[in-house]
């Protein structure tokens, strides 16, 4: 077991998305030691999965990449990827955190991303760490790997060792910041969305990956089922959200996300008809409303106020039927679409470590970290605290970093 030297101003940040990255940089810049724990294989969180950012339409990754690079180079920041917090307990001088780091059989420091292991692997167990990772490298999925060792033979740098085992790291820290972001909720308990009944019914993050410029289809909009260009795409807002059966809250980012996706579909192929089914078009934020106006004007996207009551594959065709009531005209209609994008099913992903029966951090019934009752930390930022987009997460992260800094000052004073 590795044990790190105690530093009484060190902070543990759980989650390496935008919020975690910004908080880590801000704290490290003031001279604190920061441990950044990320459960995924690379930093960047959900934003790294996005193709474009609203409202600037910039590539999502480029600005993020600069900050990730700063994190990786910062002498005060230690990053643990593929790692989770297994336990946190109070100890004299702070908290003792146990971090479990899963191994990657491919040494990322040696991998030159030549791709020979991937070609050699008979089981398709080798895949890139991420679509945009700096520096790019591969990882081996331990579940599919059969340990045939073909990859070891072809690797030119000797980066592969299939016997690497998980590491446990014990850290003594003075503060914890929760920045665990969000994940998607499975919509199958809500039968009207028809999840799983048709390959072209997908969630918006799946759609983003499916149509990303750096992704599989190089920005082409095609159906998953047939590979053909769809004639019409439906974007269903508030899928699972603002819905007492699943998520009672508004996920806040999805309206803008859908407008962005619809207009990028239009930009890449103006022939495709785009419909957004919404409840309220919540364009709250800098330039968001203007962005939505611009996009709706430049590329005619149809806005329908209403929540579809049924989404179902049409028998004997590849199309999907969407049955809805347009609440502005009070007409009940059925429309035919080739693809359906479900938007809104975002839930905060908390750490949930069983710690003597209590889950940490303590959460509200909706799953947001409740900093008022949490026993470990009063600090959380990003979506795990309250639905937030990139700008909002970044602001919250800096603010939390400031509060953490004050905390230490106050503690020092009481010690004196």
């Amino acid at each position, binding site marked *: 077991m590795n044990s790190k030297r105690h530093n009484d101003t060190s902070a543990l940040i759980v989650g390496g998305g935008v919020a975690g990255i910004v908080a880590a940089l801000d704290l490290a810049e003031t001279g604190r030691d920061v441990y950044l724990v990320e459960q995924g294989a690379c930093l960047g969180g959900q934003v790294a999965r996005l193709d474009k950012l609203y409202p600037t339409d910039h590539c999502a990754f480029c*600005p993020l990449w600069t900050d990730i690079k700063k994190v990786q180079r910062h002498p005060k920041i230690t990053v643990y990827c593929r790692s989770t917090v297994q336990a946190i307990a109070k100890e004299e001088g702070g908290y003792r955190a146990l971090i479990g780091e899963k191994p990657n059989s491919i040494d990322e420091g040696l991998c030159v991303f030549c791709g020979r292991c991937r070609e050699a692997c008979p089981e398709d167990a080798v895949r890139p760490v991420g679509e945009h990772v700096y520096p790019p490298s591969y990882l081996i999925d331990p579940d599919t790997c059969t340990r045939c060792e073909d990859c070891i033979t072809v690797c*030119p740098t000797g980066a592969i060792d299939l016997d690497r085992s998980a590491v446990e790291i014990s850290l003594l820290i003075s503060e914890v910041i929760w920045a665990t972001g969000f994940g998607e909720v499975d919509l199958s308990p809500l039968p009207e969305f028809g999840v799983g009944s048709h390959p072209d019914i997908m969630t918006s993050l799946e759609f983003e990956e499916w149509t990303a410029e750096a992704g599989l289809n190089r920005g082409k909009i095609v159906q998953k089922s047939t590979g053909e260009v769809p004639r019409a795409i439906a974007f269903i807002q508030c899928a699972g959200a603002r819905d007492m059966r699943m998520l009672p809250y508004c996920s806040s980012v999805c309206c803008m996300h859908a407008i962005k996706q619809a207009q990028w579909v239009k930009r890449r192929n103006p022939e495709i008809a785009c419909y957004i089914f919404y409840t309220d078009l919540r364009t709250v934020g800098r330039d968001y409303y203007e962005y939505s106006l611009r996009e709706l004007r430049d590329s005619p996207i149809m806005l329908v106020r209403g929540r579809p009551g049924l989404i179902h594959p049409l028998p004997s065709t590849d199309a999907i039927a969407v049955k809805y009531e347009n609440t502005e005209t009070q007409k009940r209609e059925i429309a035919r679409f080739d693809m359906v994008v479900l938007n809104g099913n975002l839930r905060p992903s908390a750490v949930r470590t069983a710690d003597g029966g209590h889950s940490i951090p303590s959460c509200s019934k909706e799953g947001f970290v409740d900093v008022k009752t949490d026993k470990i930390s009063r600090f959380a930022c990003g979506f795990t605290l309250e639905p937030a987009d990139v700008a909002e997460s970044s602001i919250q992260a*800096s603010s939390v970093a400031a509060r953490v800094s004050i905390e230490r000052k106050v503690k020092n004073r009481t010690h004196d």
Partner: protein
Amino acid sequence: MTDVRVYLCRCFSEVDRTVDLERIQERLLQNASVASSTIVDSLCLDSDIQRVAAEIKESGAERVVIAACSTMGRGDSVIEGLAEEGVDRFAIHLIDIREGCAWIHQDEPEGATFKAWNLIDMGVSLVAKKDRSDDVTIRVRPEVLIIGAGPAGLAAAVMVAKLGYTVHCLDRAAHPGGMLRFISRSYPNDEDAVLKLAPYLDEIHNNARIAFYPQARVETVTGFAGNFTVRFSSGGQERWIRPGAIIIATGAMVYLPHGLYRYGETQNIITQMELERRLQSESDSIQNAVFVQCVGARIPERPYCSTICCPASIKNAMRIVEKNPDARVSIVHRDIMMPGSILEDYYRRAMLQGVQFVRYRDDMLPAIKGYEQVRAVEVHDSITGTTRVLDADLVVLSTPLVPNPDNRYLADMLGLQCDRYGFFREIYPLHPLETRMEGIFICGSARWPVSSDQAIVQGEAAAMKVISLLGKGEVAASSFSRVPGQKFGHATVNPDRCTGCGNCVAVCPFDACTLQEIEEKYTYISRVNKMRCKACGNCVAVCLNGAMQVPEHNYRAVVEMIKRAF
């Protein structure tokens, strides 16, 4: 002639299976600057880096070109590794021949080889001829100027002071507190605004590190991140301070809807702010109230959503119902903007308390009925498709926040950008409080309309950004590069060639160039402030006499590169 050593990396045959490195070697011999070229197996293993670094140092080569993978690949770590081994980072130039040549042109080995040779050849010319601009490090002033003492400015001031820095907080009003002083309660926690402000005001008045200047106006700002000089007047007195960083928290103003919905005609058509004041002072009960949303917002003249109006209306509607359970309160709205979990819950609570929500379409605006006294609001309910008449003895117009008119004045003075409405612009969403000028940060409604809670969060966040800058005690001009590890240098003036025409001053987007009078020659010459310059090269392009240069990309190097390329 500068000697350049070239290293060509095979990358375990990733490169040379497409690009013919030996042919490149041959062709490079024609370039007189190339002292030697070596093909190596790989450059990213530590052992190779050490070997190459030793070779470079031993040979005494002044400049090195590494042709390997891109900076997005491992190229960066190669440079980093060589630098750690003691090779001057400035002397190394990286050319990407893997991703940009070998991989992308796999089907065209001939073209890939030509492109790689061309890039390397140009790189050799650049690295052989480039000069170094000197860096400068300054000590930062541990003082912060905060313009505006609303919730954002106060939160920033208190945070900066608690972290141990001196704060100068200015406000054009006589008292701190900003718009929060005119609000009865803040959403979503229904806190009394006076109680919410109290701890901040207490800190402002009692913390020795904070100086508050009422009735202030900023007159001039000069200097750069770490050391600004600010002249301002406060209460008729002129003052000078030298802060290391500036936070702009000038807030916003409420739009007065003259000419809309008969505002100003009768006493019972009021704005949200007027209602706030009424709720602050009176405990009278309002019987029938109708809130009209998006008055003057989300219209062609003002195509933005002001964020705070929906929650504010819901807050006040609930307050009216709370005081008088018999009251009938309706909110007439377009989209109801309550994003997130807290606000959505707030919205739901209002519905449960009996607040009525009626959705109207922007092409069928509500109309106010009644002559001298308002009697009702007629609205087309877009959800039921019917026209409804809502009894009203009070109509509250929910108007947006509009930018502070001083914003443009400040932006001109500080070199910042405003958007077309007049709110301050950030650099990009990932860095929402940073501006194009280093050391100047924006927060609160000066940036975009926000609630008091969000303003406080933003104020604290801006304080953190300031501390990150000032915390180290000193900053180098080169540290302001937004690309980590990259130093682009800064423009330098050749005083013998400068005629003081001022072209550079006119085009510099960062206000780094100034003209300085040379008395004995009766002329001016240009000076470049290194702390402000970002080496964009605009001044080089407009300089008539070639007096301006960015040494890292000087004329000789660039001309030579172009010659080599074509």
